[in-house]
C-alpha cells in the first residue's frame, strides 16, 4: 500500500525529476505538473492526498494557484519558496497553504513535513469535544464546519485541529510551542507565524468582530486561549 499520492507542481523539470525519484523511493505515488494551470487540471481529474506547490512560476503563479485550489478543496498544500523572509511565509500561509519549505531543502526535512501535513488528525479524539458552542455559533469538529444560523462555513483540517485542541484546554492559555508540536508535529516549535495566520483565519470564521476577538484570545508572549462562555 502506498503512503499517499502527491502532486508536485514546479516549473523546473530537474526539481520535478528529483522529487519524483525521492518521493517514490519513500513509497508515495507521484504525479507532476509544470504550472499552476496544469496543477488545477490534474486536481480536477485525479484525487491526491497532498500538493507540493512552487511559489515562483510563470503563468498564474503559486500563491494564486493555492487560493484557487482552496476554493474547492481542503487538500493539504506545502509551498516551496526560495525567499525566506517572514512576509513571504505569511503570504504563503495566508493563501491557504498548510506549511512551506524553503529552497534548497534536504529530502528528510521534506519527508517530515509531508508526514506532518498528511497526519489529518494527529490527536486522539478521546476526551476531545465533538462540538463547541460559542454564543450563536456552533462548531462541529467531526464534519469540520462552523454553523452560524443557516450559514455553514468549512474549516480546513489544520484549523479544525487547532480549534479542537484549544477547546480541550479551554479558558486556559496554551503555549505556542505546545500548539505547534501537537498540530504540526514534533519537528515544529518556532514557527509562531503559522499560528498567527491560522488564528487570524479562525477568527474570521468564528468571531462576530475578528479585529476585537472575544473567544479566541491572544495571550501576549505565551500563546493563545479559547474563552468559552459558561452555560447557564
Amino acid at each position: 500500500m502506498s503512503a499517499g499520492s502527491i502532486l508536485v507542481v514546479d516549473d523546473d523539470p530537474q526539481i520535478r525529476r528529483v522529487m519524483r525519484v525521492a518521493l517514490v523511493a519513500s513509497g508515495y505515488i507521484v504525479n507532476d505538473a509544470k504550472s499552476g494551470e496544469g496543477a488545477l487540471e490534474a486536481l480536477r481529474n485525479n484525487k491526491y492526498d497532498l500538493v507540493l506547490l512552487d511559489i515562483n512560476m510563470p503563468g498564474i503563479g503559486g500563491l494564486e494557484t493555492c487560493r484557487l485550489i482552496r476554493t474547492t478543496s481542503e487538500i493539504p498544500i506545502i509551498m516551496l519558496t526560495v525567499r525566506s523572509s517572514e512576509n513571504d511565509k505569511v503570504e504563503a500561509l495566508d493563501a491557504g497553504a498548510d506549511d512551506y519549505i524553503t529552497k534548497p531543502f534536504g529530502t528528510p526535512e521534506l519527508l517530515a513535513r509531508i508526514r506532518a501535513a498528511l497526519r489529518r488528525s494527529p490527536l486522539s479524539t478521546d476526551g476531545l469535544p465533538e462540538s463547541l458552542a460559542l454564543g450563536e455559533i456552533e462548531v462541529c469538529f467531526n464534519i469540520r464546519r462552523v454553523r452560524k444560523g443557516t450559514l455553514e462555513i468549512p474549516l480546513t483540517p489544520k484549523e479544525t485541529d487547532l480549534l479542537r485542541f484549544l477547546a480541550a484546554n479551554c479558558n486556559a492559555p496554551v503555549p505556542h510551542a505546545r500548539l505547534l508540536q501537537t498540530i504540526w508535529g514534533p519537528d515544529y516549535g518556532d514557527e509562531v507565524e503559522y499560528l498567527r495566520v491560522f488564528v487570524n483565519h479562525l477568527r474570521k470564521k468564528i468571531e462576530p468582530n475578528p479585529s476585537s476577538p472575544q473567544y479566541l484570545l491572544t495571550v501576549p508572549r505565551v500563546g493563545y486561549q479559547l474563552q468559552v462562555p459558561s452555560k447557564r
Partner: protein
Amino acid sequence: MNIKSTVRLAAVLGTIGAITLLCFHLVPVNATTAGFAYLIAILLIATAWGLLEAMVASVTAVLCFNYFFFPPIGTFTIAEPRNWVALCAFLATSIVASQLSARAKRQAQEAMERREETERLYALSRAILLTEAGRMAPKEYAKEIAQIFDLSSVALYERYSAATYRAGPNDLPGVEEKLREAATLGTLFRDELSEITVTPIHLGGQPIASLAISGRLLSDSALQAISNLVAIGLEKVRGQEAASQAEAARRSEELKSTLLDAIAHEFKTPLTSIKAAASALLLNAENSTEQQRELATIVNEEADRMAWLVTEAIQMARIEAGEIQLNRRSCALPKLLSKALERLRLLTEDRALDVQIDPNVPMIAADTGLLELAIRQVIDNALKYSPPTSAIHVRLSAGENGIIISIRDEGPGIPEVDQAHVFDKFYRGSNTRSKLAGTGMGLAVARHILRSHGGDIQLATTSEKGSEFVISLPVVSEAKRR
C-alpha cells in the same frame, strides 16, 4: 548739463521775462502786484520742475523786481531802506516756497517709485513661486529679474554649484570675480557711474549666492527684497534636488534587491535539485541502483548547470561593467543558433520551436561565445514572457543589408509604458516584475554585445498576439577585417 534742463532753464528765464514785460509795459501795475505775480510763477515752476529751476527763477525775479519796480527804476540800486526789506522778504518767501513744493513733488515721485517697485517685486515673487524647481530654475530667475525690473543685464552666481546664470541683452564683462567675492564674503558692490550693483544673497545668515544687475540702480530695500526672493527660490531648487537624489537612491536600492532576488532564484533552483537528490541518496541506502543512478545523474547535471550559471553571471557582470573584448573568429551562424537552442533545452522541451534557417547565410567574423550569449538572452526573454506551452519562432536569413535573426513569441505583448525601456538595464516589465524570475539584464547585455559587433537589436512589433525582436548583424568576413 543735458538738453532737457537747458530747455527748462531757458523756459524759466522766458517766463520771468514775460511777467516782467506784462507788468511793466503792457499792464503797468504797482510793485506789490508784480511781486505776487513773480511768486505765483516761482511756485508753479517749483511744483512742475523742481528746486534748481525754482531757485534760478527766484534769483532772476529778484533782479527784475529790483531793476524794474523799485526806484530808482532802471538801476540795480535801491534808494529806500523799506524797499530793501520788501526785496529780502520776497527772496526768502520765494526760496522757502520753492523748497516746500519741490519736496512735496519729490515725495510724490518717491511714493510712485515705491509703488512700482512693490508691483515688480510682487511679479517676481509670483514668477519664482511658479517656476518649476528644476535644474534650469536659476536661469529662469535671472531672466525674470531682468525682464520685470527692466534691466540691461543680470547675472546670478550660485555658490553651491559655482555656476553663473546670465540674462539680459548686455554682457557684464569681468563681473565674475565680483560675484564670487560677494557670494563668499557677503560684500555689496555698487558702481554708480556704470550702474552696476553686485549684492550677496543670504540664507540663514550665510551667503549662498550673489546677484549682479546693471542698467539702473535699485533702492536698497528693493535689492534686499529681490535677494530674499531669490534665496527662497534657490532653496526650493536645492530641496527638490535633495528629494530627487533620495528618490534615485531608493530606486537603486530597489533594483539591487530585485537583482539579488533574481540571482538567488537562479542559483537556488539547481542547488535545490542537488541538495534534495544528495540527501535522498544518503537517506535511503536501500534504494534500487536505478534510483541511485537517476539521483546521481541529477546531481551531476545540476552541478554543470550551476557552473554554467556562475560563468554566465561573471560574463554578464563584465559586459555590464563595460569590459567587452571581442575575440573574433570565423563563425557559422546556423551552428551557433542550434547550440544556443540546445543550451536552452530544459526550458524549451514543452515548446513548439519553429526554426527556419536560410542555408545561404554567409560565415561572419564574430566572438562566438558572446554572440551565442546574446542570442540566448533574447530567446530566453521570449520564453519567459510567453505562455508555458506557446510556440517560439526563430528565423535566420541573409538580406541585402546583412544578416537578420528574428525571434518571435506568442506572448501577451509588451505594454506601451514598457516598450521604450525593454533594453534598459535592470528594467523589468511593469506587470511581471514581481512574478517572474530574472535580473532585467538580459536584453541590455544582448544589445551591448550586438552593438559591439556592429549590429543591433530592435523590438520590431508587439501586439496581443506576441512580440518580435529582430537582430541585425553586418557581414564582416575574416579577410575583410584584416
